[in-house]
């Protein structure tokens, strides 16, 4: 996968985005929670705790009723958020209200983006992504991940993102063909989201070989690479970053903590404290992976004890 360096020049200089900057150290932690799970106020507190724990990019899920790319953990989180009344407008209010100094990525499904401009009180004559991209950019969103918008349907969304200076992040799956990878790299900005395994989102006990395979294929690509799907512990983060990633994306492991909090009716501050400590473990793992860079990926660290999760 060779790329024309000349074509990339523009991306590396002054015009580099907030998101790309967040990956500059090569050990970025991208933390996902569902906005509004279990309330907008709680999400604000959780987001701030995650950033205090070392999160470099905050990924906030805007809940859609049919989240086909998600496993059961995040499906339930999105449902809790919907039940609590989260809407696209409330989401944007939440983003405006966040007291964090890291870029925010909006992860959602295309229908919500498409419908926003023609919904009540707005007057787009036909559905289209422009109105939401503009509103999100105004609220402070730096990028989008839209799992049901593959590169071949993304032209209009990509144009809207370009216009408003927002990054559009594409997901590279283990099944992605070379031809599709080429098209994606042409259009992706900010970072590429490397889907660590086939299937849906969810915490797993190991890092899949597919993640390493995708990183190898992307080794030459001049854009930051973050691995998600299945990462739940510091050791995973270390292994993935040592294997060539510039960052890790973690979602379900946090959402499990939030779900526990909801189930046991815990104070928000207690859940936030656990999220902060989990983020710190993951960030530390990523940093260790980055400092081990060049010494090989899956080293003999397997003897050392698994980092404790609370």
């Amino acid at each position, binding site marked *: 996968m060779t790329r024309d360096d000349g074509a990339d020049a523009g991306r590396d200089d002054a015009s580099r985005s907030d998101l790309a900057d967040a990956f500059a150290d090569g050990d970025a932690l991208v933390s996902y929670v569902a906005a509004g799970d279990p309330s907008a106020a709680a999400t604000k507190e959780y987001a701030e705790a995650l950033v205090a724990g070392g999160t470099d990019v905050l990924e906030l899920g805007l809940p*859609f*009723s*049919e*989240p*086909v*790319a998600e*496993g059961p953990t995040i*499906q339930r989180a999105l*449902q809790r958020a*919907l039940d609590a009344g989260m*809407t*696209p*407008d409330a989401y944007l209010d939440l983003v405006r209200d966040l007291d964090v100094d890291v870029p925010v990525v909006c992860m959602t*499904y*295309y*229908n*919500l983006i*498409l*419908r*926003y401009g*023609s*919904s*009540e009180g707005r007057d787009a004559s*036909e*559905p289209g992504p422009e109105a939401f991209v503009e509103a999100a950019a105004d609220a402070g969103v730096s990028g989008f991940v839209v*799992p*049901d*918008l*593959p*590169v*071949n*349907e993304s032209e209009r969304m990509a144009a809207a993102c370009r216009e408003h200076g927002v990054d559009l992040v*594409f*997901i*590279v*799956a*283990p*099944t*992605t*063909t070379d031809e*599709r990878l080429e098209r*994606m790299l042409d259009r992706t900005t900010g970072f590429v989201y490397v*889907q660590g395994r*086939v*299937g*849906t989102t969810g915490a797993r006990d190991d890092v899949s070989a597919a993640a390493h395979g995708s990183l190898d294929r992307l080794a030459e690509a001049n854009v930051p690479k973050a691995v998600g799907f299945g990462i739940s512990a510091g050791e995973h983060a270390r292994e993935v970053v040592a294997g060539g990633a510039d960052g890790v994306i973690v979602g379900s492991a946090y959402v499990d903590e939030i779900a526990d909090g909801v189930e046991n009716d815990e104070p928000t501050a207690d859940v936030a404290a656990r999220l902060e400590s989990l983020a710190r473990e993951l960030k530390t793992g990523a940093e260790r992976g980055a400092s081990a860079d060049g010494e090989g990926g899956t080293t003999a660290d397997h003897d050392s004890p698994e980092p404790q999760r609370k």
Partner: protein
Amino acid sequence: MSEDPVRSGKFGDYGGQYVPEVLMPAVEELADAYERYVLENEDGFVDEFRRHLREFGGRPTPLSHAANLSERYGTEVYLKREDLLHGGAHKLNNALGQVLLAKYMGKERVVAETGAGQHGTATAMACAYLDMPCEIYMGRTDVNRQRPNVFRMRIHDAEVNPVDAGSGTLKEAINETMRDWATNVEDTHYVVGSVVGPHPFPAMVRDFQSVISEELREQSREQLGQLPEAVIACAGGGSNTMGAFSAFIGSAELFGAPTGAHEPAPDVDLLAVEAGGAELGVDADEGYAPNSASLTTGSEGVLHGARTKLLQTDEGQIVESHSVSAGLDYAGVGPELAHLVDEGRVTPVSVGDDAALEAFHCLSREEGIIPALESSHAIAYLEEYEGEGPVVVNVSGRGDKDLDTVIEESAERDLDVAPSMEVFEQ
């Protein structure tokens, strides 16, 4: 149509391929297999498909003159008898085609969603016949209201996985089947049950179902000496609808069809009867539509891989739909059908739960045919049909699976036309 939908999968603005990247290679591989095997008959695929339709499916299905209904409505009424297809519904046409295609593609396993259980049953039958392992996802509510079909699937050795999410109907079953496919994409084919989903499903399912209108056209010529004035079919996702309409539109031409069987016939009115449920409209506050009439009342959006008309809230959350008929109970509709409605080629109409139940009893007592509750919607529209005829109604399936529902719902409504069941009382 501005682009060739066979290649682009676009029907005007509708259609497309809105699926997670992990599925895109499978979707592209399928599009390639569709072009080679289905459109070009590579390795004799379509010949084998047609042979199975005859020898296993029992095609052609008859076009029956409904003498008593004709008299009742003062217009000549004919019934296309997909209820007589093996398994009791048109669903087998598509299930046979896709399971056979999965074999040609070297897939080792199929998954499918089902609403009323007709598609699940057809897939289970086709898999037993063609020796393919299969797993069916079915919403919990549908499992409970369509028990006979769950028994049938299990008896054919299919795994049945109930889905508890949401209202436990077709929409949730599709979500879960997509997740299974995303997890097992390398050796698994997803047998989509209607003309919905990402390209090539809408075009491919239409082509497999187009045998309905291909036969209907020939039979009309032979038995009526003319084409019908109108064809009436119920529309949920729209597979029997597109099957009954496509030869008249000329949007499909399955290999081996008689000459002229798919010539566009613009004079034939095409009426898609949606489930009007309890009433039309969407209650956005409750996230609920008391109907499944996405063509009549829906708005444009993206769901389950395609851009189409949907029942959704103002901000784009998909709402729970409703119909007394599980097979029509879906918040979306096939993208080609949405396009044909916009173009004015297909006329969407709707029939509510009550009228569908009455039509169920009417056909059962007047013609000796127990129709599926889905098909009952198409029959019910005869009450409002004002043309001179002859008119053909597609009886997409038989109603044995619906007896419990019909008895219960008829009693609740105190329907005059419903027979008394006091035989069970002491």
